[in-house]
Each structure stands twice: as structure tokens, then as C-alpha cells.
């Protein structure tokens, strides 16, 4: 059993029906949705023995880390930069988004090895966004910091591309 880095398939489906919103946009003919707010994204850590992958659809505490000062559900992700879309040609382009600050778990003790952070939309019923893996770690009376990649078309944390 292992975690697998992947875009969650349910998130792709959510995007197509507008069920998740990571930034604000002016909409037409949607009544009270013409001035929508940005959804809250959260980040939870999972044990190396957990099985999060592309089929994960919603946040669950099963397999989540536990320990001193870690709150189930994880921490809120700073989302001050709306998604961006850029055309690379007349037939291709990239839409991308990256949290605008590092994800930090302060003064925690997590003694069982973990290797995965799960991003989910706590505003929209804790729907899954993505699973990101890294080398297995433990933390003892310390801080776990996840620094985000550069928010570019080739390195952003979440990229939707056509070629």
C-alpha cells in the first residue's frame, strides 16, 4: 500500500461542472453567483501506509497523521493568487495554480512516517483536489514546512494543459 502522486480524477470532473472554485471570477447570468467568493483549500498530511491516489474523492481522516499539535483536517492553504491561464499556441495552453505561501505545521510531533499532503476544498464538502508525495518524514517537537514550487506554466502545483 502506498500513496501515489496524482491529480484527483474527481477534481477534473468538479472543474467541468464548476463544483470547485479556487479563485474568483465575474460570472454572467448566475444570479447571486455573479460575485462569488474564493473557496477555502486545506492541506492534510497522510501516513506512508495510507492509500491516497487519483481515486480519492473527498477528505477522510483514515490514514491521516496524528500527533501533538496536529489538528485533524490539516491547515488552511494561503490562496491569494487566483488561477492563471496562458496560451502557448493557437491549439495549446496551460491553466495553473499554486498556493501563495508555504504550508506550515508548527511545533508538531508526528512520530509515524508520513509522505503525502492532500489538498482538498473545505468549502465544497471537502472535495479532493490533489495528492502530492515526498520522501518519508517524521517530525519531533519541530516544524514541518512545505514550500511550494514556482507558479509557472511548467512547475505550478496544479497544471491543466492541452498540447
Amino acid at each position, binding site marked *: 500500500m502506498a500513496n501515489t*502522486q496524482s491529480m484527483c480524477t474527481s477534481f477534473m470532473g468538479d472543474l467541468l461542472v464548476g463544483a470547485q472554485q479556487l479563485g474568483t471570477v465575474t460570472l454572467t447570468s448566475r444570479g447571486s453567483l455573479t460575485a462569488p467568493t474564493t473557496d477555502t483549500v486545506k492541506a492534510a498530511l497522510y501516513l506512508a501506509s495510507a492509500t491516497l491516489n487519483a481515486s480519492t474523492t473527498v477528505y477522510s481522516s483514515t490514514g491521516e497523521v496524528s500527533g501533538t499539535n496536529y489538528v485533524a483536517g490539516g491547515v488552511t492553504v494561503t490562496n491569494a493568487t487566483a488561477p492563471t491561464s496562458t496560451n502557448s499556441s493557437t491549439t495549446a495552453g496551460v491553466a495553473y495554480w499554486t498556493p501563495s505561501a508555504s504550508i506550515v505545521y508548527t511545533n508538531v510531533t508526528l512520530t509515524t512516517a508520513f509522505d503525502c499532503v492532500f489538498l482538498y476544498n473545505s468549502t465544497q464538502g471537502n472535495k479532493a483536489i490533489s495528492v*502530492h508525495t*515526498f*520522501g518519508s*518524514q517524521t517530525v519531533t*517537537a519541530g516544524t514541518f514546512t512545505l514550500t511550494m*514550487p514556482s507558479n509557472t506554466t511548467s512547475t505550478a502545483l496544479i*497544471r*491543466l494543459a492541452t498540447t
Partner: protein
Amino acid sequence: MALVNTTKGEMDESLLEKREGSLDNDIETTTWTEYWLDGELVHRSVHVSLKTGPALFAEAASFD
């Protein structure tokens, strides 16, 4: 005098053995700092810098 948060409360760094490590691959650059007291791990912090995330490639079907 630098203080370090440990399993035994805040301690003067000079009283502790400091160990550091790092990892670098296609996914991440990671560093960690440990402090040991008499053979016991009393502090471990980790900093993971992700290099990129998974990409989703999409396409529109044709009617051909």
C-alpha cells in the same frame, strides 16, 4: 544563546548535538535538522521544497 524547542521544553542549543541532512531529487529538495540529547532525539524539523506538481493533460474529441 539560541533556544531550541524540544520534547523536554526549550533548551539552549549549546547543550544539544545538532545533526543535519538533505535530499534532492526530481520531486523535492528537502532538508532536516535534528537535535539530540544524550542519545535521544528531542527535536526534528523538516523543510520540503516541492519542485512541481502533477500535470493534467486535457483534449477535446473530434467528430472525425
